[in-house]
């Protein structure tokens, strides 16, 4: 019991410190840093959402770019004012029933999540009959279908012109508030009986089925929840960027998120969070690689995209030397910190003997 309360106290103190830190960041970060900081939060949600299907349920899905686009468009179209919509849709007018819809941010965001979740459910019911690479191909194809539909459904999405001038709703509190809420939800989910059922499917599908787990139903459930979270992230992204167009949701976007998941550890919430923040920050920190470089003996011209080579190299190193990524399937815990000596061990007396 004593150690329970120690951990509870530590968690409580860490939460307070975290919130205090957010206040400090809000005050001290300049606009540019703050944008990156918000993007970290959005990527945390995306990585967690992809990790739920790929890491915890063991389904190789590559549909996240499209689902994200769906969430972004849904949220944007619901939250824009009629006047903004009329400004945007100058080539072809928006369908009348959508013109006058104007909701506050929270309901728009939830609607984006629910709609994306619903589409994810539809996709899941069809595609989850497939396995492994076949599932990956089907979901990747579906992601592209969404993008093509977004490009061509001009009266609804404004086609390739995209949507501009969205209200800048995604403040730091929205971004990090959502990221924290999603994290708490996923931790509770994964540690529940449902989380165990998801993991059993990942570990051995045939055995899971023989133990009475409705494997197909569970896969669809996991996929739907993941799509819901992905839609939320999409909505936050739309009102973070304030400009969206279908090209942003090209399937390569999925691999950016997959990179985070693999680096952090497939099947680790902690890993996804740490990797999402690290990768998002490095994308900016390493921006100097894209410009002219002075290597001492050689001055290169700017090579746009060179910083991506760094991530490719990093990914290769991880795949060869540490396939489990940063965290493998383990999670952060105070007891784990104590084990590696960063905290005083509890019950030290018995262990010393």
């Amino acid at each position, binding site marked *: 019991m004593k150690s329970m309360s120690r951990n509870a106290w530590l968690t409580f103190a860490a939460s307070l410190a975290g919130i205090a830190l957010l206040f400090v960041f809000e005050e001290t970060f300049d606009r540019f840093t703050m944008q990156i900081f918000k993007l970290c939060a959005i990527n945390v949600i995306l990585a967690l959402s992809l990790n739920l299907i790929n890491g915890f349920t063991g389904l190789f899905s590559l549909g996240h770019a499209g689902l994200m686009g769906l969430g972004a468009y849904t949220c944007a179209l619901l939250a824009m004012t009629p006047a903004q919509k009329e400004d945007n849709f100058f080539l072809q007018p928006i369908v009348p029933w959508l013109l006058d819809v104007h909701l506050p941010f929270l309901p728009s965001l939830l609607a984006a999540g629910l709609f994306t979740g619903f589409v994810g459910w539809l996709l899941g019911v069809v595609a989850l009959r497939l396995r492994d690479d076949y599932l990956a191909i089907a979901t990747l194809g579906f992601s592209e279908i969404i993008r093509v539909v977004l490009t061509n459904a001009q009266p609804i999405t404004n086609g390739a012109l995209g949507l501009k001038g969205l209200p800048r709703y995604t403040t730091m509190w929205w971004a990090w508030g959502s990221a924290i809420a999603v994290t708490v939800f996923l931790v509770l989910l994964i540690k*529940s009986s449902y989380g165990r059922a998801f993991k059993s499917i990942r570990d051995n599908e045939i*055995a899971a089925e023989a133990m009475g787990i409705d494997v197909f139903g569970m896969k669809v459930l996991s996929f739907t929840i993941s799509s819901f979270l992905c839609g939320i992230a999409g909505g936050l992204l739309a009102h973070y960027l304030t400009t969206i167009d279908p090209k942003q949701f090209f399937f390569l976007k999925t691999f950016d998120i997959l990179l985070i998941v693999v680096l952090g550890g497939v099947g680790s919430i902690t890993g996804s969070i740490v990797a999402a923040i690290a990768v998002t920050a490095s994308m900016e920190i390493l921006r100097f690689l894209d410009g002219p470089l002075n290597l001492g003996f050689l001055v290169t011209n700017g090579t746009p995209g060179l910083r991506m080579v760094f991530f490719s190299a990093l990914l290769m190193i991880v795949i060869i030397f540490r396939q489990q990524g940063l965290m493998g399937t383990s999670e952060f815990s105070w007891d784990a910190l104590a084990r590696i000596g960063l905290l005083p061990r509890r019950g030290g007396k018995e262990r010393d003997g």
Partner: protein
Amino acid sequence: MGAALLETVDVHKQFGGLAAVSAFDIRVEAGEIVGLIGPNGAGKTTTFNLITGVYKPTRGKVLFDGRDITGMAPHAITRLGIARTFQNIRLFRDMSVLENVLVAQHMRMGTNLFEATLRLPSYLRRERRIHERARALLAEVGLDAHEEAKATSLPYGRQRRLEIARALATEPRLLFLDEPAAGMNPQESVELMEFILKIRDQFRLTIVLIEHHMQVVMGVCERMYVLDYGVTIAHGTPEEIQKDPRVIEAYLGVE
């Protein structure tokens, strides 16, 4: 004789041109321990897979407790009360010993997603109950000291016992054991026989087992069926089977 707990009627399974199982008729009474033997490739595991829903029979019917379960999904069949272990052990490898047993109780927990993620008192009560039961089952198979260990880190014999504990956790009435004594030494085999008899009485089980270990089969089974090339060539008590010329021919060949 009462109504059979398990009955198959003229079950066939074709894999392309190969008749893996043909005209399989088995009848198992409640409380019996029935053996299924035969040379390698005789179709024993296939019959298990046909009954537990992994495969769908090409023809014929499977009746469990008078109910037609032919072609039902495996998880639905498990829910009705049929559990199994696997010939090539299939544990949830990245999960702990305790979690392996907990998963098997998910179906009987009767919880829902909201209750579970919000940690409502009703869920916590159920969670405590299945933890207690899981620990009791692990104690039953002598694994209570290893509940935090990763399932695949256990030695082979213990993995087999964990599989049985996991199967028992689904609260079955009928238990299929696929080669439970595989890889065991004579001492362990004797312990296994005692264990099978014990769980039969304790959990009021009916057991069907596949086994190559003749000492085990003859020791615990009241009746047995012999398969060869998918055909049931004999059935009867161990004594009858031992003398049956067709069984001897299937195992040892003919002069």
